[in-house]
């Protein structure tokens, strides 16, 4: 445990104050404004003289702009200005990609507004600035534009073939990068090829991670106000700090002249972990016009142009002994980048690279990934970012291996997972898992589900030939959270660190302001941070105010993603509080005329050891040092403090998720009968918030399994461009969740927290698919492509195998078992 500001600090954890607030289900401080409609969303902003931006978007997926005439639009009422890419070509630069995963990664650059060529439907081609939202939108109709269509590249497996049309004519292929992690070469495992050559059994599968849309509820919105040569940007973003740095670099506006504010932000899920074209355009236009500019997207624009998530084709092979002991794992991915590399587009699959081995003791592992350009909107972070993909693949293929071996899927997992006594455990991917107990979480989840009864019912239904079959699916997962140790990020070529900052200000009246660099968008930081500080400083929960999301107030920060806030940002708060107490101790000793060493600090009060009763509260110290009439020589008259925490390791939440699924074999309709999960997220600061995070994650993970898919037609049009077509689940589409926790504290931070934001989303998807397959595998079904629509399920049941879904672009199951000496093309009808 080492704070950045003191690299020589001893390798011990700080002493935490006794927890009184931590662990309590405090109701959230944030709620008061949210339930009364008194919230500050970016789109609520109205500034004097404010102008509105509307964006004309390309209707073609790939083409050359041959004609563009905006003169008629300029004549429309209340229009102030109209610009094309050519008008802004000199100053717009390229939107940033902060994660060059390989030294030779090809990045063609990404203009905020297309200059002469478009590469996906929805790309900006012209912009109108007008006095009202409606006037700007109306004027778009008057813009005259023609395109020369170019061949559209949509399918990754075709895109990487020799002779495929290119997305970018500046490149020689559609492959952006080839990323490899080989445990044998890295020295963290044995030789993978040898492991497969020696194996008694190997199982190979091809899985498809469909394209998803984060679909945060608050549409993106940005307002930029110029003032002299200073600019203030309000944006519905997860990352005001990163956005400020990046926007300064892109536009040339000096960083110290740019202030970025994320006011209340209505969800993100990774989707607002981005530097958006419209943010850059609003800055450029505010600079040109000297007026405040606002842009708020429609839902249609959001689904069509905000970055998407997932979209991988996964080829995964597992090698094992006949008794079930796993011997090797081999993964090859095609990852769809879309048309451009956005902020961390290439890094998402690379982040997942280290998690494919999951909780199992594979001695050998090799991972390869090709990042592939297509004429679709770019992919980037979506809740879990790389880890759901890895978890799905490993948890699905463990079930396939169990079937191949004739073993119970849980028995196979037990045989191979890391035992509780083996922590800390260094995996074949080189990660050190710190703590946990997979068996305990599994046992508790089985209890919560009522496993034995459901297995018995499954048997009864099977024997009676019930048209509604029951299946049970497992996901025993871990994830890599608490992003991230800065040195590790550096070794992975990420463009920034992973530290987090906090400062604490003691006000004269004894109230406390906590400034965090981790910017929330629904997670409840204000409440949880207050609980932590209340314990650390011994002040009432109500007396703590948490400030965030404004680079002028919180100057240092790396924002919120990757289940990092509590683990890294919460620890920074603890460290800052520790410094406040250290500084206050000197003042208190002076005022009490005692030696510092004789003071103890409990419950907010400094008292002299052995002299009960006498003492001084930290609030009194705050007032005394505000007056500053009497304080020791050589001490600054302030007890405020700042701290930056850089973790030395990731955290590894884990858990067991079990889904019981009913499948109507006559209609293909699937229904979650019961869902139980036990998660270990380390120390729980607020159980109410933890439970809420798990619920929300489950909803999104289950939605990937059952409902959601971003679909493009053959011309590259998004056909799921509204909430009519893109099915984010309603209340009636989701089951009741039975959730529980085990607690094994993280060893990498003093709070013991592991992170919870992504757990439900990472764990649930394979549990749901495994459950559906368990219900119908006896009917000859080997796989069903996500989402499990009634049609796909019905076809799988009635055709066998994977439902006759043979189009390579539409199928995720051409699996083979090489012990049958089969090859993919000859096992499509595999009816095992």
């Amino acid at each position: 445990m080492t704070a950045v500001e003191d690299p020589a600090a001893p390798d011990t954890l700080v002493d935490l104050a006794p927890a009184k607030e931590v662990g309590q289900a405090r109701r959230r401080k944030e709620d008061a404004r949210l339930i009364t409609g008194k919230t500050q969303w970016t789109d609520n902003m109205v500034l004097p003289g404010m102008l509105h931006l509307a964006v004309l978007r390309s209707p073609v997926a790939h083409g050359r702009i041959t004609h563009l005439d905006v003169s008629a639009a300029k004549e429309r009422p209340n229009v102030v200005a109209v610009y094309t890419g050519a008008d802004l070509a000199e100053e717009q630069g390229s939107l940033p990609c902060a994660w060059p995963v390989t030294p030779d990664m090809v990045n063609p650059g990404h203009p905020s507004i297309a200059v002469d060529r478009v590469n996906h439907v929805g790309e900006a081609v012209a912009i109108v600035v007008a006095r009202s939202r409606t006037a700007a939108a109306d004027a778009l109709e008057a813009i005259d534009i023609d395109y020369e269509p170019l061949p559209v590249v949509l399918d990754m497996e075709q895109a990487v073939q020799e002779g495929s049309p290119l997305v970018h004519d500046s490149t020689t292929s559609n492959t952006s990068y080839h990323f490899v992690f080989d445990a044998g070469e890295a020295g963290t495992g044995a030789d993978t090829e040898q492991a497969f050559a020696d194996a008694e059994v190997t199982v190979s599968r091809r899985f498809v991670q469909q394209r998803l849309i984060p679909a945060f509820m608050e549409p993106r919105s940005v307002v930029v106000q110029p003032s002299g040569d200073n600019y203030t940007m309000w944006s519905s973003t997860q990352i005001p700090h990163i956005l400020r740095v990046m926007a300064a670099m892109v536009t040339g506006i000096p960083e110290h002249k740019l202030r970025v504010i994320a006011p209340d932000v209505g969800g993100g899920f990774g989707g607002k972990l981005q530097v958006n074209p419209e943010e850059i355009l609003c800055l450029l236009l505010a600079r040109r016009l000297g007026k405040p500019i606002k842009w708020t997207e429609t839902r249609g624009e959001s689904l069509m142009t905000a970055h998407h998530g997932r979209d991988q084709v996964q080829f995964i092979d597992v090698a094992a002994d006949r008794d079930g002991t796993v011997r090797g794992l081999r993964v090859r991915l095609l990852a769809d980048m879309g048309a451009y590399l956005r902020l961390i587009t290439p890094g998402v699959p690379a982040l997942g690279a280290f998690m494919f081995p999951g909780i199992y003791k594979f001695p050998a592992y090799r991972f390869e990934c090709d990042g592939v350009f297509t004429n679709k909107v770019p992919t980037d972070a979506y809740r879990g970012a790389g880890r759901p993909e890895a978890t799905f693949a490993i948890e699905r293929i463990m079930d396939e291996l169990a079937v191949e071996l004739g073993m119970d899927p849980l028995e196979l997992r037990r045989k191979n997972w890391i035992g509780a006594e083996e922590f800390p455990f260094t995996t074949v991917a080189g990660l050190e898992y710190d703590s946990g107990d997979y068996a305990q979480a599994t046992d508790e989840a089985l209890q919560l589900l009522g496993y034995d009864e459901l297995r018995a019912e499954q048997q009864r239904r099977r024997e009676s030939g019930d048209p509604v079959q029951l299946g049970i699916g497992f996901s025993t997962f871990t994830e890599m959270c608490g992003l991230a140790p800065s040195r590790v990020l550096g070794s992975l070529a990420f463009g920034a660190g992973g530290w987090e900052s906090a400062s604490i200000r003691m006000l004269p009246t004894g109230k406390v302001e906590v400034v965090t660099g981790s910017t929330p968008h629904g997670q409840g930081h204000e409440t949880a941070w207050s609980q932590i500080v209340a314990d650390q400083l011994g002040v009432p929960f109500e007396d703590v105010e948490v400030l965030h999301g404004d680079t002028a107030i919180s100057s240092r920060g790396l924002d919120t993603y990757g289940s990092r806030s509590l683990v890294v940002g919460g620890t920074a708060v603890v460290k800052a509080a520790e410094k406040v107490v250290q500084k206050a101790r000197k003042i208190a000793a002076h005022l009490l005329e005692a030696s510092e060493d004789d003071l103890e600090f409990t419950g907010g009060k400094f008292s002299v050891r052995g002299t009960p009763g006498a003492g001084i509260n930290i609030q009194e110290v705050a007032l005394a040092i505000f007056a500053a009439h009497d304080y020791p020589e050589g001490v600054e008259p302030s007890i405020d403090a700042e701290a930056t925490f850089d973790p030395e390791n990731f955290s590894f939440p884990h858990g067991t998720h079990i889904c019981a699924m009913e499948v109507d074999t006559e209609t293909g309709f699937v229904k979650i009968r019961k869902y139980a999960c036990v998660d270990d997220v380390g120390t729980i600061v607020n159980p109410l918030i933890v439970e809420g995070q798990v619920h929300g994650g489950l909803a999104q993970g289950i939605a990937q399994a059952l409902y959601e898919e971003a679909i493009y037609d053959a011309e590259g049009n998004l056909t799921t461009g509204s909430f009519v077509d893109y099915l984010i689940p309603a209340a009636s589409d989701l089951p009741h969740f039975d959730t529980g926790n085990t607690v094994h504290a993280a060893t990498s931070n003093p709070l013991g927290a592991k992170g919870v934001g992504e757990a439900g989303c990472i764990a649930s998807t394979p549990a749901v698919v495994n459950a559906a397959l368990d219900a119908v595998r006896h009917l000859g079904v080997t796989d069903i492509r996500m989402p499990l629509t009634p049609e796909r399920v019905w076809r799988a049941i009635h055709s066998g195998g994977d439902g006759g879904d043979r189009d390579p672009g539409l199928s995720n199951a051409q699996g083979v078992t090489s012990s049958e000496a089969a090859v993919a093309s000859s096992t499509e009808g595999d009816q095992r």
Partner: protein
Amino acid sequence: MTQINVRVDGASYSDDVEPRTLLVHYLREQLGKVGTVVGCDTSNCGACTVHLDGQAVKSCTVLAVQTDGCQVTTIEGIAGGGAERAALHPVQRAFHEMHGLQCGFCTPGMIMASIDLLKENPDPSDSEVREGIEGNLCRCTGYQNIVRAVRHAAAEMRGEAEGDPEASPAVVDTAAAEHVIDEPMAAQA
């Protein structure tokens, strides 16, 4: 431009509006009632739900001119005043107590839809709540705590759950809030 006279949250307004102006845009842009938000373009998300003459409507599907002579109630008009607990509507209070919101963007619409639901059905089951609010989308909560909140508010509004609201759900194990879970199996679509 067409003139309309409308009462919103108890105050009278007389305004000229474009015939194409949606109620939600009239509320937000002309009246500054920004508590009501826009979440989609297709009337799917329900974030903009308000009450029009006492009935829940999605204010993106109503033209402002249609509200001439009507009473509109928004999220800003249901509490007794101020943000103190005692002044809140029982449904607002229940969303807070049961952690029925995270980012809070869907919350105004969700609360307005829930109030309407409870008017129709003062004692809904879990599945009746789930079906009753299926026109309102939430991306954060997974809905379970919203269902809990609506049923908790229902009980309070029926006069059955008076007393210290901190007493439920359980302090640590919120999953143990049995009083609102009477049919866990019936909740699926």
